[in-house]
């Protein structure tokens, strides 16, 4: 008698707890599974685009453009959910189970992590034209109006007394491009003497007063909180700040910079699960259309279509010497290992 009552109490305890917990989260979980019912043939379809920080404005406009296009083309409404954050963080969330249909990230390396995890099929780089980079950008300097410290090129910003703002290459895609651009400049200047390159970068990062975790954070630190003399920024980010505060800043293009190719890819595993292969692929393909390319130009990304790029020659400095990651650094895998892995060059320059 006593024994059964203990048992039944234990059972009751277990039941209440389990009920509470499952109730707490399965109750509201059911909503999302409707996504799986997406079919390309259905009246409407929903996709998720996981992107990085500075593309917010671009995709806000592009999504409208694509929605109109797709409805005209297929008679189907597309609902697009956007997610933005630091490029590495965003890639990681997809890797951990954030079910993006497409990723539009800052680095080929970040997309490649998803391939390594088996979410994206091999050969994704060649799935879309121009290495799957519909628009490109580069790294420029944003300085305060009148350029009071007279910063023209990379040598100027390593001088003592200059305060530099750039995000942390460990967590930000943009910051890696910054680092590599500076390295490329030093490498050219010192004729390939890597010890001197390292000293150059050491001097540069000794001037850095804030290493934000993402490109947007760095811009806010420089623009809104008034920190630093120069911000190493994406070209599009610099022009955007200029547009918002035309009287406070100037954009300076250094003599040499890097061709930044933000990568786009369809997340194969997820689109198969959601049944959104066709629309996801079209979503990225349409980024190469003339209308979209112009939109990218208006948002200060360099269109990959050379004819349309020329239409924006008054905005962009097209004479800048651009190195690129494949020819000059042997691709992202090598660059990451050499510069940004734990204990690699970036860590070394911070050691005393």
């Amino acid at each position, binding site marked *: 008698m006593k024994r059964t009552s203990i048992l039944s109490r234990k059972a009751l305890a277990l039941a209440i707890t389990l009920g509470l917990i499952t109730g*707490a*989260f*399965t109750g*509201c*979980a059911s909503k999302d599974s409707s996504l799986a019912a997406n079919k390309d043939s259905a009246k409407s379809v929903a996709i998720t685009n996981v992107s990085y920080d500075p593309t917010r404005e671009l995709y806000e406009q592009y999504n409208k453009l694509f929605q109109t296009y797709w409805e005209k083309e297929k008679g189907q409404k597309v609902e697009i959910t956007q997610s*933005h954050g630091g490029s590495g963080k965003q890639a990681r969330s997809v890797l*951990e*189970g954030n079910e993006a249909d497409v990723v539009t990230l800052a680095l080929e390396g970040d997309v490649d992590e998803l391939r390594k995890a088996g979410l994206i099929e091999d050969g994704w780089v060649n799935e879309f034209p121009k290495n799957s980079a519909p628009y490109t950008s580069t790294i420029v300097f944003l300085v305060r109006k009148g350029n009071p410290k007279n910063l023209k090129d990379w040598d100027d910003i390593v001088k003592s007394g200059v305060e530099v703002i750039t995000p942390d290459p460990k967590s930000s895609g943009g910051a890696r491009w910054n680092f590599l651009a500076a390295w490329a400049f030093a490498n050219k200047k010192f004729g390939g003497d890597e010890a001197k390159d390292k000293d150059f970068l050491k001097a540069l990062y000794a001037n850095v007063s804030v290493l934000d975790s993402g490109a947007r*954070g760095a811009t806010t630190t420089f623009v809104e909180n008034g920190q630093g003399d120069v911000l190493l920024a994406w070209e599009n980010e610099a022009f955007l700040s200029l547009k918002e505060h035309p009287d406070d800043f100037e954009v300076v293009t250094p003599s040499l910079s890097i061709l930044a190719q933000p990568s786009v890819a369809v997340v194969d595993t997820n689109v198969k699960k959601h049944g959104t292969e066709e629309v996801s692929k079209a979503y990225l393909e349409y980024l190469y259309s003339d209308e979209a390319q112009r939109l990218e130009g208006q948002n200060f990304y360099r269109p990959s279509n050379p004819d349309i790029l020329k239409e924006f020659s008054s905005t962009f400095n097209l004479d800048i010497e651009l190195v690129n990651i494949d020819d000059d650094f042997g691709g992202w895998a090598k660059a990451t290992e050499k510069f940004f892995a734990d204990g690699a060059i970036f860590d070394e320059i911070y050691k005393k």
Partner: protein
Amino acid sequence: MKEKIVKVILILLGGAFLIIMLVLPLATVLVYALRQGFETFSKAITDEYAVKALHLTLLATGITVIVNTIFGVFAAWTIAKFRFRGKQALTTLIDIPFSISPIIAGLVFILVFGRIGWAYPLLEAWDIKIVFAVPGIVLATIFVTFPFVSRELIPLMQAQGSDEEEAAALMGAGGFRIFFKVTLPHIKWGLLYGVILCTARSLGEFGAVSVVSGHLRGKTNTLPLHVEILFNEFKLTAAFSVSSILVLIAVIILILRNIVEYRVKREER
């Protein structure tokens, strides 16, 4: 006379500390929220995504408070009314979420339910999504505020002793009856206080939720995350406007807390 000077100095010091550390940051939020006029402010807070984020925040807070209150009452009952080995360890384990970095709190759920987690194949088989969906946000919020109610109740119930409960039990009353008739009247204000704090903390949780959210606009963005997004969109004014809703809710909650405390003190008299 000297005593009076000391008093004034102490009050001024304390007041200055609170003004610099608490009131000014709060004032910053409100001033920035309204610096572009009321129209920008109301536009920011009635924005579709802001409203959706508010709904999600309220949903997560509601579930969290219910779960943690139930847990808190049972845990306090166990710890305060009975003697057993390992009580110290149990109390410490319950308190753990309190001192764990929110980052780690979020990370552990990724390590369980994420694509790399050990429970993932199971979830996949049943087609359940936990992290990067609403349940993950709820779960992370529950974790972070787990000890809030129990920590409030345990000292109160211990102080109360268990004589009355024992008497009731000897007269043949059942457990739930004893709780509702004997214990609850003594602890109701403490319980309410715990619930209020738990609510306040749930509304504002940022770190842990940020790790498990995935930042899907209109789907898994809570209000604090929405603030961060607006901040990152250079919409500083909008960010502060949305923050001011959170500040407002916080202030209302704290006023409630004050009323509760006032009633407790009056009852004690």
